């Protein structure tokens, strides 16, 4: 974890501490979750994904507490986890939409130089994320709780074990849920 990360987390915790009521109750839990992520980052991950997930988690915190300003009324860790999954998912999906919209908008101008039909990596990812978003929306209609679990896992970077702990259920159940969710998402994303 870099200095910059540390600074931001400290600031974040300070802000949380300043919040009245629910925030005060939560700060301990939040602190725990952030440190869990930091720990995970330091010891287990290769450079890359989780790191970015961590950064996004911070971003999501900011968004939750800044945008919801007064009191986001978070009840417990499970609620927080659900919120985190949704917010990060929203940040990424919004960005993907913007990205593809820009691409379409810009298409006409530079046609001769760069073949616009060829997407770069993040554009392909953007398309994939939107694909996943539609599939998730379908999943939400038949099992909203499963959609939240899967968002927490895929977007907020919670591990299956953590999800099990937070939801007070068995690890096996979470694995099975994720398996079920993967099946539905893959089916709806066309393999």
């Amino acid at each position, binding site marked *: 974890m*870099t*200095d*910059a*990360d540390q*600074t931001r987390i400290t600031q974040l915790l300070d802000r949380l501490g300043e919040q009245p009521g629910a925030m005060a109750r939560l700060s301990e839990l939040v602190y725990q979750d952030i440190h869990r992520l930091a720990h995970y980052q330091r010891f287990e991950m290769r*450079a*890359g*994904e989780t*790191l*970015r*997930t*961590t*950064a*996004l988690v911070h*971003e999501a915190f900011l968004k939750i507490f800044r945008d919801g300003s007064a009191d986001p009324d978070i009840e417990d860790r499970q609620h927080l986890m659900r919120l985190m999954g949704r917010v990060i998912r929203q*940040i*990424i999906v919004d*960005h*993907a939409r*913007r*990205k*593809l919209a820009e691409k379409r908008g810009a298409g006409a101008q*530079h046609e*001769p*130089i*760069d*073949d616009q039909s*060829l*997407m*770069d*990596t*993040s554009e392909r*990812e953007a*398309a*994939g*994320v*939107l*694909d*996943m978003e*539609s599939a998730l929306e*379908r999943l939400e*209609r*038949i*099992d909203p709780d499963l959609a939240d679990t899967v968002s927490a*896992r*895929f977007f907020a970077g919670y591990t299956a074990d953590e999800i099990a702990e937070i939801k007070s259920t068995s690890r096996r159940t979470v694995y*099975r849920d*994720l*398996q*079920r969710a*993967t*099946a*539905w*998402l*893959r*089916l*709806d*994303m*066309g*393999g």
Partner: protein
Amino acid sequence: MRLRAVPGHAVMTTHHAELTDTRRRALDKLLTGYLECPVKEQADYIARCRRRWPRLSRWLAELIGHSQTVSLLDRSFNHLASEALASSNDQSVQPLETGRRLGPWRVTEPVAQGGMGSVYLGERADGAFELDVAIKLLKLRGRGLGQHLQRECRYLARLDHPGITRLLDAGLDQQAGPFLVMEWVDGQNLGEWIQSTRPNNRRRLDLFEQIVEAIGHAHQRLIVHGDIKPDNIRIKNNGQAKVMDFGVARLLDAGDQSDRVRAMTPAFAAPEQLAGEPVTPHSDIWSLGALLHWLLCGKTLSRHCEDLTSELSCKGVERSVELAAMIGKASATTPEYRYQSCAELIDELHRLRQHHPLRAMPDSRRYRMVRFVRRNPVLVGGITATIIALSAGLTATTSMYLEAERAWRAAAAEQAQADARAAELEQVASFQEQQLGEIDPEQFGAVIRQNLLRQREDMSPQDDHSSTVAALERALAGINFTDAALESLDRTFLDQTRTAINEQFGNQPEIKARLLQSLASTQVALGDHQQAMDPQTTAFEIRRTVLGKSHPETLHSARELGRLHKFLQDYEQALKLVEMAIEGQTEHLGATHPDTLLSKRDMADINSKQQKFDEAEALLRNTLNGQRQVLGNDHPETLMTMNMLGLLFVDRGQPADGIEYLETALEKRRKVLGEQHPHTLISLNNLGITHADLGDFQTAEEIHRQVFYARTKQLGSDHGNTLRSLSNLGFAVQQQGRLEEAESLHRQALEGRIRVLGEAHADSWTSMNHLALTLTSMEQHGEAQALFERALEVAYEHFGPGHRRTLATASNLSTSKQRSGDLEGAARLSGQSARQAVEHLGQKDWVTAAMLMNHARVLKAGGEYRESASQAEAAHEIFARTLGKDHPRTIDCTELLVRVHNQWFKATKDESLRQQARHWEERAEHSTD
């Protein structure tokens, strides 16, 4: 996770539309039930579902399939996530106002907002001197950034190259954060430049070379760019390319780590960079490959593009094959396969420009040949011209020797330097080996011939072309151009090399041996085994005397010499040498060292040539096991051994066992080496021949057709290997009774072979026989016999009177005469070949029996039963003794004996003959039991 390029549900199959939410819920319950089921009961569960809910179960099966994929959907939006993060940061950044000071600099106008920060045009605030600069604000936070920036700046200041924008200053502003100040470049970025000037291919490549040079300058100073892309290249108005933002990627590494992803552009970033590893010169080379692709066709390089060549040629890029190979090598996924430095890449660009063979294209000899001719369009006019061309090449090489030798003598006093010289000499020699070894004499011969004809046409434009050219073609038909090419190579290039080695290194035995070994290897690579014998033997003997018999170099020479003896069919000698190599290698390298294993394989090959199949099999299996352990299952050498094991079975008359190995080797070669690799094609060809051996001509035909097309494309239609495939194809077609088609294929093959190899070549002989046999089946005896007669002449001259091939041709001709009613002529020939067989091959060779049997057949047709029976009996005895009494040929002969005696009885009514017929009949029946 595999991502689809199109968002939404457009690709969904129609039955998805039936999946209403109600059904989904029901299905979800079934899926949950399945996942909760113990593994043992899952099959039952599915069966139960299928009975009760047949329609839903279709979905269930699909869902279960998807649920078993372990890979999760994460890792799929790395870049997007970091971009999302970046853009959410952006919203909080306020642009700097005009006139704002940053250290001694003043902002004059905003220029661009980028992923890593924003750029402003600026100037000196203190008016000390007039200078336009680019000020770049970096989105970096972190402790100790000030010192870090200064350190990096000193580091970047080492860059001083006209192709690199200079870094002038760097600092940390309390509010704005860290900033860099760079030389301002008036001009366009790469994209704009291409749009406005529409440069041709050549110009684009020149520009690319400038860029590579600049990057190379930095790499030499241990500075990596890390974000090479079109936006980072500016073209000044005088056409000079300037690379910007050097080392910024590295600077960003120091900041918040989540910024690292933002510091590169995914389309131009090497795979390892995308995986989060730090940037290196290798990743820069990857980016340069992607940049070259973009420069040439305006598209970003797709990481999964399988056919770069057609992509480039579709965009109208010339020399697309070579450029695609260059891009492929520069942007290889594995860093070790890329160009190892910018210098290497520049060298490749020069090779491309001068029509020298590219490093990126190692496999195609034809390609090298064509490049050679392209380089020397005037010289490669005919044989003499070729000699001149090669001599010119030689002069350069010989003078290199002389020069090296002079220098060597000058430094003789210092042993260390002398060693260096020897290493240099070896480089010269191995260079020569490599260059010459790449020449394919068959290809070369074909080129010489074509050029001769073309010259003739050019010289006499007034003449009646067709007749003079036809006359020349007739005159050339007797020449084997492959041999001619080989000879001219040998006489010009290698002869002088031999002399040079002897004269200049006579008193330095070790170097002499090394050079002789190299010369011999060159000749072997050229296929000139006879000529290689002398230098190879000398090299071996020198090494044995000077280095001792267990020195690795001696052992290497021993094995090579053994191989040579094997080629020249002196198996005893070959075996002795290879045994010596194995013994030494086992002792010094170990029994399972790859080199030891190769020697064992050589020994197996020799054994199988001597028909010692069991020994050969044991050795091959031993080699195969060793190679599997040491080199792995998919190593090309392992596959070669597997292929040889398959061929051994085929040779031994067990094609069905052989096919298994051949097919495995083929599959792996396809996978490891690719569909079109020469080894893969050899495997395929072997498989085709084996299928024909087993009587499956339909499969054989398919296979040979495939090989023929691939070789035509790779080697051209006039190459010996292509013609071999054509001939094999013709045989498979012929055996299926499609005679007219077979006739045309054999004609093509024969014409090609005469063109390339001359009439007096074993391959041409084969084609004459094939074509004549086909014509005989078509009852076109006139032409068939004329062909057989030509083939017979070739055989007499080429193989000698008692050779199996000569005998076979004579026997074919006699059959044809018999079928056309010329019994007398037939009998004369069959009798002659039977006598020659007895004389040359003796009574222990089944070919002699075949000749006797053929003669018996002709005699029977002429009513000479007594003589026929006696010949057939002699044949039968030999067949039974050499092949066994149950062999199809023996049985065939028994049946002939039955027919002869029956007809003889009919003609004479002599009862004893009928009994004899019955006796043979019983034997025939007995052996078929």
